[in-house]
């Protein structure tokens, strides 16, 4: 298991075409794209290879955070690849990672896989600073309290 890569997988009872639309049509994307309790007051999606995207999210406490990037691959309804970078508090865009989303048809719907890489050494070290032993590190990532 590689600590510099984030991988998630879901089996979703909806066809790949429908799910792909949720990733690429702004009206659909704003309904789900963010942590629980956040909304998206502004966004821009230019969904084509080389096109820019950005979304600004509002946390429950009112704080705004912007994440943005460029689409590298747009292959409906199978594959979407884009870069990803958060702005820091002074509005400077931070370390860039790349997100690959694949939509694989299954008998009951779609197997959606999301891979985000490559995290910096600093981010990975942050993860280990909790003092947990090896086995528990991966546990922590999804153990975020709500």
């Amino acid at each position, binding site marked *: *298991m590689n600590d510099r890569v*984030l*991988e*998630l*997988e*879901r*089996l*979703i*009872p*909806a*066809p790949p075409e*429908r*799910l792909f639309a*949720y990733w690429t049509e702004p009206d*659909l994307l704003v*309904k*789900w*794209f*963010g*942590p*629980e309790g956040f909304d998206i007051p502004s966004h821009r999606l230019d969904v084509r290879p080389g096109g820019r995207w950005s979304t600004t999210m509002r946390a429950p406490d009112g704080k705004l955070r912007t994440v943005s990037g460029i689409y590298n691959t747009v292959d409906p309804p199978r594959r979407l690849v884009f870069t990803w970078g958060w702005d820091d508090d002074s509005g400077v865009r931070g370390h860039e990672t790349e997100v690959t989303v694949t939509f694989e048809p299954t*008998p*009951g*719907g779609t197997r*959606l896989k*999301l891979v*985000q890489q490559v*995290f910096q050494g600093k*981010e*990975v070290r*942050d*993860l280990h*600073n*909790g*003092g*947990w032993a090896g*086995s*528990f590190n*991966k*546990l*922590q*990532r*999804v*153990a*975020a*309290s*709500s």
Partner: protein
Amino acid sequence: MRSASPDRLDAMFAALADPTRRSIMERLAARGELSVGDIAEPFRISAPAISRHLQVLERAGLIERRTERQWRLVRMRREALKPVESWLTRQHRHWSDALDRLEALAAADTPKRRKS
């Protein structure tokens, strides 16, 4: 948020003291959600044994199970452990929350097909 009682913590640590159960949790943490078949696959132990391990993890509040059409699915309960917040943890939470919402929305606007 409810804080975990000492009994609950004991159950959690006892559940995680076993290497097979730790390995199951690591895979769930890395993959999000898995079918019972996917979970059993790498282990050379019987289906009832896997089922018992899942029961221990469920009683400790570490996993939750659901049935979706033909799949019996297992996922980690994200609220089960309070993490040390890190950039990567927050990034993971971003996707896991978002994909939960995507799943609910997309499933709701897809007509259910009946098995013939």
